[in-house]
């Protein structure tokens, strides 16, 4: 069953310069493995590659049920250069939560 990631996870985005970081947290511990398996850096690049232009590093925090994505060159120049209305990329968290994941039926 395909569902938006938002159904099983929450997220927060932050920025430093032209680097965006988004943490993604499973609501239920049993969903952590599923999220880790499906929400890979390759998946983010395939979905949002025009925006996320640099290397994407993923850190795993199994004990806390979360993943931390650190995305270089992902803010169109960053808060002081970008022409994006959301120059901080605060909304990148919602962008990632809109991705679909496969849940067991």
């Amino acid at each position, binding site marked *: 069953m395909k569902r938006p990631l*938002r*159904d099983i996870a*929450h*997220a*927060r985005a*932050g*920025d*430093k*310069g*032209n*680097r965006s*970081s988004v*943490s993604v*947290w499973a*609501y239920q511990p049993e969903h952590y493995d599923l999220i880790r398996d499906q929400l890979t850096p390759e998946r983010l690049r395939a*979905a*949002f590659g*025009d*925006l*996320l232009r640099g290397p994407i*590093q993923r*850190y795993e*925090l199994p*004990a*806390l*049920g*979360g993943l*931390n994505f*650190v995305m270089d060159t992902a803010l*169109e120049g960053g*808060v*002081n*250069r970008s*022409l*994006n*209305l*959301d120059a901080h990329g605060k*909304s990148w968290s919602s*962008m990632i939560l*809109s991705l679909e994941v496969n849940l067991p039926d």
Partner: protein
Amino acid sequence: MTHRIGTGAGFSADRLDPALQLLKHGELDTMVFECVGERTLAFGHRDRQANPARGYNPLLERRLRAVLPLAREHGTRLVTNMGVANPRAAAEATARLARELGLKGLRIAAVLGDEVSDLIGPDTALPEPGCTVAEIGRPYLAANAYLGADAILPALQAGADVVITGRVADPSLFLAPLAHAHGWDLGDWDRMAAGTVVGHLLECAAQVTGGYFADPGVKDVPNLAYVGFPLAEVEADGSAVVTKLAAAGGRVDLMTVKEQLLYEVHDPAAYVTPDVIADFTTVRPDDQGADRVRLGGVQGRARPDQLKVTVAFDGGLLAEAEISYAGIGAVDRARLAGEIIAERMAHLHGHNGELRCDLIGVSALHGTAQVPYPATAQDVRLRCALRADSREQAELLLWEVEAMLCCGPAGGGGYRGQITASVITESAFVDRERVRPSFEMIEVCR
């Protein structure tokens, strides 16, 4: 003895009422106002260039007029980076205010030494863009090192009631009073990490108490309109409980704490500050219910040998202009307006830099990512933006967008335009021995 430390502001324009509520009812030993970001620091420098008596947080007087009497009444010490680009002038302004309020004997310390223009030259390397200061090719504005808790501690030891800094690493504003209260050795890395985690969780104020969190129907926040600011009860061993006032809106639980734990963090195993390298993967938050989350077991390792420096450059002007289209056919009319503006800016006015045109209501914030969007919308706002070095060039964009009122597609309305001076910042690194912090104390006459 437990040290009760709370947040009075988590960014430059943060609310005042939750700070006053927490001061009145939180029985705080210390309240921290964190008000500096990369942008606000650079704007502080520009304010100071225009007027040598300014360059500190524009809300300082308004905030402290309400805060100082309460802080004295409740015996709460204040630590803030509201000095921004001019901590000495901020301390003097605070002293004037204290005299006016009759707060005799109040001791106000200005922490100095974060300005390191003398350590930055044209050949200084900027690792992220991979070039030198000179190669940025824009007028240099200022350079500030991130000071640590060791720069604040002497002012606390000298008995300051109010400590005002410029650029200090945000968690250090919290770590310094904790280290002072509990007598922590600044080389005790696990304690430095424990205090840094507390500071990191509290530094953005409501972001750990339910702010920046609500998603209606998925994760709701009670009484978000009156979300409270956080406080932490910190023990001598470094363990702590993060909580809020029961009467305040918001929530403190594992979800709010975890989101904030990694906020603006890169490698969670190596959160680098001037004080310590903290391992956030060792944090085991324990939800005790009733908006109380206990933290403990944090590990740290030796602080870095270099300090990060924010180098600021004049970024020219950002021009933004908007006009709305609504009702049937709105998307096509807004898109046509954007095409006309792009055509005229490029070929009539010779603008060869980037020009961004977004359709707000259809695809704007995630426009570059090419996220699929609904084909129809009934209320669309065209937003155009560019950067320019001259005001005349910036005004051209506003003029072209406003001209859509008569010369563009049918039914455009609600034009707004603005031009904002901007600042570009990059990071450099300097050896910590070359940065020499100090403090000056002002005592309000008895």
